[in-house]
């Protein structure tokens, strides 16, 4: 297995609405700054892969427009994942395993949710015959998941609120965070429910934003970065789509992915969980086998910002950055997409 590392990560400020810049204009400065930070020119990059969804901004081929951020001339070696960008990073990792001539890679993701109605857009991921026509939106589905946890005695509404309190507290140290602050669960619980038992603090913010990562292989990574964040395991697994076929209080595919990626092979200093809704944070901690000695979502997690389709890459980047700067030695990044954590990807990162 070829040793591949993340050597740099950057993201835009997470904004509720970015009305003045298009996708390419959001991405361009992130990519430019990132290349500069490791001393690479855009023409030095061996492979480029992005993640996005045309439905978010309602524009066909928005990923092609986004290529303008790269100055893709002469033609570049490039691919795209229609979905969460952690999977684009996985594609890149596989590509770099197969093609040893590729020494460096750029992965970027972006989402501009503010133009459309995210709650309606995301219902499209459901079965188009049996579920999508009745519009079980993401908040409603997550609420069903939350109710199972309450009915089974796994967690309470206060436990959900505590996840938001923790994330928002951690986000205070994140200058790019969209939401942050000191709250207490009791106060948050006084809010009305949106889809019972979920309240606003249990739901992800709507964000316009972009993010990017540079990966490098072997000695190239050591040359460009003092302390690369090495990918020691990266695996993804999928559960059956229909909610009625699953025990929503668990996430078997995340558990399988974590086992395959080798999460338990060492102490996990930090973990970034792509849990759009607070109950999912609790499910994932268990599925990934994370204990009390792991700091969960030091960046603020989903509450720091949700540049949907880029959100999973931010999780990887936030773990990588803390390894690169020496704050942590070993960390786990989780990404998800699909209704109620249907698809899960787990990346284990280590410093040397």
């Amino acid at each position, binding site marked *: 297995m070829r040793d591949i590392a993340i050597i740099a990560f950057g993201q835009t400020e997470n*904004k*509720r609405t970015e*009305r*003045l810049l*298009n996708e*390419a*204009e959001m991405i*361009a400065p992130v990519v430019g700054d990132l290349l500069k930070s490791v001393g690479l020119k*855009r023409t030095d990059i061996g492979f480029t892969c992005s993640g996005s969804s045309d*439905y978010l*901004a*309602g*524009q*066909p081929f928005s990923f092609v*427009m986004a290529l*303008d951020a790269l*100055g*893709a*001339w002469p033609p570049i070696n490039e691919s795209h994942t229609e979905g969460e960008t952690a999977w684009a990073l996985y594609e890149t990792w596989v590509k770099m395993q197969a093609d040893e001539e590729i020494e460096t890679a750029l992965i970027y993701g972006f989402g501009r949710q503010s133009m*459309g*109605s*995210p*709650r*309606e857009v995301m*219902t*499209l991921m459901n079965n*188009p*015959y*049996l*579920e*999508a*026509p*009745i*519009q*079980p939106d993401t908040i*409603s*589905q997550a*609420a*069903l998941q939350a*109710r*199972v946890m309450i*009915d089974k005695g796994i967690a309470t509404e206060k436990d959900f609120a505590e996840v938001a309190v923790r994330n*928002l507290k951690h986000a205070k140290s994140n200058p790019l*965070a969209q*939401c*942050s*602050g000191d709250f207490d669960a009791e106060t948050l619980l006084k809010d*009305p429910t*949106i*889809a*019972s038992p*979920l309240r*606003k603090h249990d*739901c992800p913010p*709507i964000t316009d934003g972009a993010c990017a990562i540079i990966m490098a292989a072997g000695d190239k990574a050591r040359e460009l970065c003092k302390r690369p964040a090495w990918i020691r395991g990266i695996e993804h697994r999928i559960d059956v789509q*229909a*909610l*009625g*076929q699953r025990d*929503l209080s668990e996430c078997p595919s995340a558990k399988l992915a974590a086992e395959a990626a080798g999460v338990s092979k060492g102490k996990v200093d930090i973990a970034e969980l792509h849990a759009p809704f607070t109950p999912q944070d609790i499910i994932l901690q268990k599925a990934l086998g994370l204990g009390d000695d792991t700091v969960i979502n030091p960046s603020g997690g989903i509450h720091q910002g949700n540049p949907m389709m880029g959100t999973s890459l931010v999780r990887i980047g936030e773990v990588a950055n803390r390894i690169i700067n020496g704050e942590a030695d070993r960390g786990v990044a989780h990404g998800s997409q699909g209704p109620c954590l249907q698809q899960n990807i787990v990346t284990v990162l280590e410093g040397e």
Partner: protein
Amino acid sequence: MFTYRLELTNSCFGSFFPHLGRGLPLRHEGSTKPSKPFDFFGSECVDLALVVAAFVLAEIDQAWDRPGQDPPYLMVHYEPSSKQGAVTMSEFPISFTLEFPYTRTPGPVIGRFLTGLRDGRILGIRSGDRILCPPMEFDPDTCETLALDFVDVGPSGTVENWTWIAEPTSKHPIQEPFAFALVKLDGADTVMTHAVKASGPEAISTGMRVTAQFREERVGAVTDVYFVPEADAEKQSIEPGEGEVEITTHTISLPYTDTLYPHSARFAQGLLDGKFIGQRTRDGTVSFPGKGYDALARVVLTEADDVELPPVGTVLSYTTIAPIQYKGQTETEPYLTAIIILDGAGQTLTPQDIRNIPTDEFRVGMRLRAVFKPAAERDIDNVDNDWMYPSIGNVVDHWESSGEPDCPLDELPESV
């Protein structure tokens, strides 16, 4: 004339959840306009673009409204238009609806299920010793194809799980507060996601009994049915339809809103003025319409880079379109459509319809001039920020011969 910048802020919780609620007040800052705080809909200072932008932002997700809290507000900065640069909003709000009218064949399993709903029955399928409802084509554990062995289940069942939707969206199947629930129908081993009509959240609970109610008009779709508390169920007598459901339709309709970016706004204003405005990039080619930045040099382009192109160009290609009928199609007769590149442009125009030149006289290399409509008849309703298929609005009346000799075929301009 003033331009303005919008900033989203939130008076509650500082940076926490900086979203917008309904009926938000506007505040405004700056010295070039009267500096009084003003109400959103009441102010003379608010012009159309602002109202639309603010309304749009407020519409985005009602789930983020926060009753009982100070509403968030828009901060408006007025700046003299001479300062107009990359961070000013254009005065052209745009909105569009993305629609996909899907027609699908449901196959032998889902087709039988939908046929059942049309006929007032709910069918599950046998998978080993379990009954799956809704039915699946494959065993979810082994992926084995399931035999077409259907079993009637329901019409009553048990709520395994539920959530109360206090404010339904316009897309939800019940247009009053309702519950989504996972319902295990009597005789089935798996649960179905569906809507339950109940008087309130206190009228629904895990373990409660519900009964299917079929709608008066049924089309063979999952929306033909909904659930009510068992005690509220009305006895229904349903006349089965004819034949199997072999086609199911599902229209996706998604609203989007934006404003034209500043360079797009100048392009659009040019169209209204009867001009083609592009942007000169660093290598000398003219991007038409401009993108606001130079994709190769990776620098921002400004108003200083705008150039007007002549309304004259060369035909690079053409074809005759025989219109097929689809939802939204307005053409009925064959017509010519041509790829034209304006003199000096780096890209071709989107295909231009040619109605006035006979097909047998039309040819590649032909030189054409755009004849603009009278100013009052020009509109830019379909101009948006999309530069891959950029519209030049509805401003050109027709294309006519420029009177120049054809461009020789080996000298046709290059384009991307």
